[in-house]
């Protein structure tokens, strides 16, 4: 299980990329099945079959990751796997299953189910590859695989004109960001002569930072900023969260962000260690940590302030997600290995909560058209259990103990503050993050107020099916249990990233 492979043959490559292979094959199988059975099978049944197939594929991939995944890399540094990659991929697979589960709750699936599932799986393949990428080209290709699939999925309900419009907006902004990224990568290649991150690191050792390299780094950071929806590159997020089909929105909000953060940490610490500069209180030395600090500040402030004014819950979640990206950036900025580990833990646990909230919104507004505040009103009357789940999930996002959101945030801040040479360097950013959390409590409590303190405009009880109930229940349970007993998993994360 823990053999180290320096892949040279096709067999070795296959061993290293087995989970990705399984997912690609599953994607092709879903396409084939839908091609064979469309029209011959009732639409709902077909859709459920495809979903189960996808879940099966993800489960198999997860099984391989858990039990039979060697560590190692493909020659030339195109692709690698280690303990940390495995854990993060498992997290992504779990969040992917949750998103598909969300889709299974759909009673009236839209047409072209085969393509929908195949694209969803391909997006996940892209995320998997992204996590294992150690090479600028690979990073770019994987990012684009994910992004292109998500553009199509966002506009999947093409009968709604708003969907097409939003998908186009997402595509155009995403395209521009890809251009930034590619331009940055090409400058880096031009300066160093290498594409593999480890080679770049070696080439740059003991070299001063040149203006050209700085420009390349800044361009790449802008590109990544779009992908993780950090302010000021977040403007696509609210529209996409609002309009995309619920499972897609939840995938964008959870798994794709996890992958984005992981690769950002890998890119910066794997290729550009030594150029990070530092922040200490009000003082700073130029480096990419300062740039990340700027992104983090803007994300926390803009995200939370904009969320205060939203009337649509999905847009609110999008802005709050921007703020959460800001918090997680603090983890990437930390010079200890535990920093990125805590950021990954944070994003995965946040992903669980937000998938649960999307599940709830899906129940309350099955067509996804109306997700204004009113849908929450009187939820307590209509379904006390749903209201209780909403409370747990939302309070976890707000960072209230003993839920996992608090613990993940606490862990993040501790590692942001703790660094051997420069303890408490980021304390002002941490203080800002805590202040921003206080602002966020205002709108999170507002959601709970609608659910618990207002009377329902509609008193009809809620018709949720088994898939929806199990998804909401499971995410809530994970949020509570991981909050109470985080020890083992957290230790695993810390250990995996340290090696």
């Amino acid at each position: 299980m823990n053999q180290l492979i320096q892949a040279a043959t096709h067999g070795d490559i296959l061993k290293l990329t087995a989970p990705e292979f399984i997912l690609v094959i599953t994607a092709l199988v879903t396409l084939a099945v839908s091609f064979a059975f469309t029209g011959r099978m009732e639409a709902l049944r077909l859709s459920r079959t495809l979903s189960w197939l996808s879940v099966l594929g993800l489960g198999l991939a997860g099984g391989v990751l858990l039990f039979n995944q060697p560590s190692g890399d493909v020659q030339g540094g195109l692709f690698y796997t280690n303990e940390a990659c495995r854990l993060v991929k498992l997290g992504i697979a779990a969040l992917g299953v949750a998103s598909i589960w969300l889709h299974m709750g759909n009673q009236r699936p839209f047409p072209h189910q085969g393509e929908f599932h195949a694209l969803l799986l391909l997006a996940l393949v892209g995320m998997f590859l992204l996590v294992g990428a150690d090479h600028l080209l690979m990073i770019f290709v994987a990012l684009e695989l994910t992004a292109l699939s998500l553009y199509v999925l966002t506009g999947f309900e093409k009968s709604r004109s708003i969907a097409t419009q939003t998908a186009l907006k997402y595509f155009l902004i995403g395209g521009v960001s890809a251009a930034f990224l590619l331009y940055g990568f090409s400058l880096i290649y031009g300066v160093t002569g290498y594409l593999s991150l480890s080679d770049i690191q070696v080439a740059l050792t003991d070299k001063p930072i040149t203006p050209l390299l700085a420009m390349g780094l800044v361009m790449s950071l802008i590109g990544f900023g779009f992908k993780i929806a950090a302010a000021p590159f977040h403007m696509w997020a609210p529209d996409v969260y609002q309009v995309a089909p619920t499972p897609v929105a939840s995938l964008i909000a959870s798994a794709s962000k996890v992958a984005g953060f992981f690769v950002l940490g890998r890119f910066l610490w794997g290729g550009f260690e030594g150029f990070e500069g530092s922040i200490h209180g009000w003082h700073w030395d130029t480096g990419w940590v300062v740039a990340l600090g700027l992104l983090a500040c803007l994300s926390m402030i803009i995200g939370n302030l904009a969320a205060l004014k939203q009337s649509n819950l999905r847009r609110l979640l999008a802005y709050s997600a921007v703020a959460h990206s800001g918090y997680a950036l603090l983890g990437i900025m930390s010079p200890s290995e535990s920093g990125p580990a805590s950021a990954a833990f944070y994003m995965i646990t946040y992903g669980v909560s937000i998938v649960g909230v999307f599940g709830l919104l899906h129940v309350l507004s099955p067509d996804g058209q109306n997700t204004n505040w009113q849908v929450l009103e009187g939820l307590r009357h209509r379904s006390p259990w749903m209201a209780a789940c909403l409370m747990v999930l939302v309070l976890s996002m707000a960072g209230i103990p003993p839920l996992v959101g608090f613990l993940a945030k606490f862990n993040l801040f501790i590692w942001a503050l703790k660094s051997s040479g420069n303890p408490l360097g980021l304390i002002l950013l941490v203080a800002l993050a805590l202040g921003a959390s206080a602002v966020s409590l205002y709108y999170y409590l507002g959601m709970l107020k609608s659910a618990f303190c207002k009377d329902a405009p509609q008193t009809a009880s809620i018709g949720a099916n088994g898939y929806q109930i199990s998804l909401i229940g499971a995410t809530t349970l994970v949020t509570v249990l991981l909050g109470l007993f985080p020890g083992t998993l957290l230790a695993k994360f810390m250990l995996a990233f340290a090696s």
Partner: protein
Amino acid sequence: MLAWTVYISFLSALGCFLLPKERPDISRQLALAGTIVAALVGLICAFSYAPVDDNPIVDTVKLSWIPSLGIQYYLAADGISMVMVVLTGIASVAAVLFSWNIEERANEFFGFFLALIGGVYGVFISFDLFLLFVFYEIAIIPKYFLIAIWGSTRKSYGAMKIVLYSFIGSALALIGIMAAFVVSGAHSFELQQLIQHPYTSEFQQWAFPVTFIGFVILAGMWPFHTWAPTGHVAAPTGASMLLAGVVMKLGAYGALRVPMTLFPMGAAMWREELALLAAISIVAGALVALVQSDFKFIIGYSSVSHMGFVLLGLLATTETGLSGAVLQMFSHGILAGLLFAVVGRMVYARTHTRELSQLDGMELGKKLPFAATVFLIAALASVGLPGFSGFVAELHVITGAWSSFSYTAIMAGVGIVIGVAYSMRALLTVFWPSHQGMPPLNNQLLPAITAQEKIGSYLLIGTSLIIGLYPRLILDLVAPSLHSPLLKPLISSVAGAQ
């Protein structure tokens, strides 16, 4: 065994949530049973509290919780914790008795109520700072719902204000706790471990005020006190009793336990400025109470004034001052509960108004003689009538403050005089108005005082009387803690500075 105070509270909370909402009577009985059992557990532990040798801290549970950060599930108690646990027990039983009239969504009310109490117990018996903080935050959220759902007068606004103030305060406190952990380099959040580290005076100079202010926001220190009157007024009676009675104590207790214990040098640097703020709290709270037209706002501001005594006692940082602070926490916890009970349950629930101008014509002194008597006793006790707990507490605080900063003691004395004035004003306007002979505006018969109200009143008055007559019950518990390694550096650093 002490840990069961927390478990019983949370389990009863869970039980209440699961009960049917159509049967408020079962929820009440469960809540009463839960609080009584928890209070008894607390009392038994307090009476059997026996520190070993020099170490006043008696461990209850100590388990590794989150090893990667060195966080332990560590419940323990010293004498100060014991006093606070007993206070929480008595105040919570009384608050349930005075919430007997809650009919609407009673199961949820008592659920949130008990969750709040569980968090409060947890804070008082945690010696791992992470755990302490967890309980501290658990106590924030139920307050929001208790006020926003069952409250009165601008309840949404009051609920949000109280929660945001609490949360911002706890965020400041958290910065201090995290910084202390990171700087110490220790792999533990245990208080006894952290105090081993010699924090530099530059560090203490900023860490102390940040952490201290973070905690005392919840204790209602001027100028961060505005949440307290608004929140107390908006809250339903039982919740105001808890808020004023025990939740404000969380702030004062946290300030003593965390910043003052960890950063004694910082305390020595800042205590004069902060003691002045505490003295201003006493006077300003009392002055504002003097001009309120809403009966409950008078009590709300009087809480700010009385909590000022607690803070002044803490900041005097002498043994007398600290004992006085603990005594005053206990005393105010009991008496504020009683005052809110009279205003909210006995008067407001019957007359549906709290405006002094309207209560003025109702001749409540004749209609509700019991309420009038209880209010008289509570008001006199809290301004320091000898024989009740308020007297010994304020005497200790003023003596302690005198030896540190004599002008703050004078300000506190002025505060007591104003306290007499606003209490008498409220008492005379509400219960015994002077303009006899005018026809009462509103002559309907008010419902009689219920048995629960009477029992609750006797319980609180009795407690205050016992402590007033025999304060050594508390002082003997507190004394070993003052000589413990936790607080010794604080007291000696101040003594050395003088």
